[in-house]
């Protein structure tokens, strides 16, 4: 059974169509939800929670229809909103206990679960201080803890790395990975940063303008493109000298990003090995240091480039 299934899901606001006849099937594991700002990621999550009614179409989460059985969905799902949602004058510990109770846990169980979950997300002694004094990273952890306290079967994480510095972002992504693998909870995690989802998700769903652009396993996005990337070390302009030498040697070399040289290769393994040898020899002949010679892989962002979709932040 799929964790999330939608059929012809459409959400129209007076001015914009946020979701446009979306057919989606999301399974267990970690699923990345990618799209530019305004692609419909947050709207999809809100519809799945039953917070916003769909205009047309149906959505089922864990076998429950979100339109008719919203309460059942919400008892099985944890939600980490994109925006700030924490009251400043209570401690993370008290808040998470309270939210556990709001999901139907008895008080003693909620306390125990809250302590467990806060430890897992990495909030130590500061959990007893009012949230108003927390850093952004700590707030994100507290938000994640309240989404996990009732042991949901699916968590919907809306931009969990928003506003975090690189170190805190790595921690958060590692945590998301653990939720999906060690905790055994299905995860739908949205982000507008493609590099992040490449790292943590098993499956990627790409939204664009409320429509499904692509949905496939992360590995499918990252298959080899058939070109080789060469990086050399030497005086300034070495990459251009190498490129010229390779072209002179009859290889279709072209400059790639960041002083790299890209060499498209066709043919069987023997032919590829021959090309590698020739690149190596050329580098040696020029007296340069060969730093790397590797297969070029696709990145998820190529989907956007190929699909002609709009602006996506490609940093991270």
């Amino acid at each position, binding site marked *: 059974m799929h964790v999330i299934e939608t059929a012809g899901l459409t959400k129209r606001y007076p001015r914009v169509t946020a979701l446009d006849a979306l057919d989606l099937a999301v399974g267990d594991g970690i699923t990345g939800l990618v799209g530019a700002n305004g692609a419909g990621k947050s709207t999809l999550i809100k519809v799945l929670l039953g*917070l*916003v009614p769909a205009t047309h179409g149906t959505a089922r989460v864990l076998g429950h229809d979100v339109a008719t059985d919203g309460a059942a969905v919400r*008892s099985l799902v944890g939600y980490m909103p994109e925006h700030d949602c924490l009251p400043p004058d209570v401690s993370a510990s008290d808040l998470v206990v309270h939210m556990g109770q*709001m999901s*139907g846990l*008895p008080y003693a169980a909620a306390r125990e679960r809250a302590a467990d979950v806060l430890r897992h997300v990495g909030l130590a002694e500061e959990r007893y201080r*009012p949230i108003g004094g927390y850093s952004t990273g700590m707030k994100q952890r507290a938000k994640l803890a309240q989404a996990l306290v009732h042991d949901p079967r699916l968590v919907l994480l809306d931009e969990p790395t928003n506003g975090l510095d690189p170190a805190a972002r790595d921690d958060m992504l590692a945590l998301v990975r653990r939720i999906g693998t060690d905790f055994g909870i299905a995860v739908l995690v949205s982000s507008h940063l493609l590099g992040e989802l490449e790292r943590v998700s098993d499956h990627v769903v790409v939204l664009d303008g409320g429509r499904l652009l692509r949905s496939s396993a992360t590995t499918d996005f990252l298959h080899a493109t058939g070109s080789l990337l060469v990086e050399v070390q030497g005086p300034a302009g070495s990459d251009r000298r190498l490129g010229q030498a390779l072209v002179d040697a009859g290889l279709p070399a072209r400059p790639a990003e960041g002083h790299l040289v890209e060499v498209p290769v066709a043919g069987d393994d023997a032919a590829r090995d021959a090309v590698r040898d020739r690149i190596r020899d050329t580098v040696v002949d020029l007296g340069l240091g060969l730093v790397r010679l590797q297969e070029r892989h696709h990145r998820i962002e190529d989907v956007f480039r190929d699909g002609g979709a709009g602006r996506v932040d490609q940093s991270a």
Partner: protein
Amino acid sequence: MTEVPAVSTSPPEPAAVAPSAVIHDLGYRPYEGPRLGAGAVSWAFFVTGLRHCFGLGRSGRSKVLPMILLALMLLPALILVGVLVQAKDLLGLDEQIVAYSTYPMTTQLLISVFVAAQAPALISRDLRFRTITLYLARPLRRTTYVLVRVASLTAATFVLIGAPLLLMYLGGLLAELPAGRETGRFLGAAVGALLLAACLAGLSALTAALTVRRGLAVAAVIVVLLVSYTVVATIQGIAWDSGHDTVGEVAGLFSPYTLVNGVQVFLFDAPEATPTPPTGTAMGLLYLGTVAVLVLGSMAAMLGRYRTVTS
């Protein structure tokens, strides 16, 4: 701590290689215990809201104002009880020095400040910090959320108004006032306190829900309550002086304090605290109806306000 080279039968775990103090990571444990239904969830929500009204479970600063107000509410009652118990025979007293029904009217400034400060703390806070999203993403229904929030505020206000009355009642029994009569009056006053709490909580909750900014909400509630009482009291004074009692009686409908005092006069024949209490059944029923409209109307307006809140 000495390292003992032990022969381990289980595969080595990351935690085992930590040098000194070891935190044993038990790993994630799923929850398999009971999950309670809507009733228990609402009750937990109600209790937390009630505690939060007095700053319990919130930061230290949040406790200061409500606790000071509660103490100030109890202080006059305590003094009255002391005088009653000590000097009952000396002064020839055979009833409470201040009637139960008059006490909330006398201490109305404290009560107004309490609801003005705590309604935003309970209601605006969830909207302003968008904590309401966390509630709406849980099984609790939207309507239940609104009703329980107002119920918490009503209960807290009832505690504030009722606590000094209880103190006076117990003092009265200690001073050997007629127990049956005192119990009747006290219960009547308790009903009055509950009605007043419901009116004040409904009004202030609605104001707080409409003004998301806290300071604005506090000011708005205080202005509504104090200005309405001042105007009503002025009109009643003039009406009584000039012999137009009916004008004063109708004016009494427009402040929660005079309104509920009038209901107590009508229902329980309690001593009046205004110059022109309602006279006659029709006016009494009008007072009672106004209370119902006020409470139910503010609830309906609250539900309408929250219908459009999505996140």
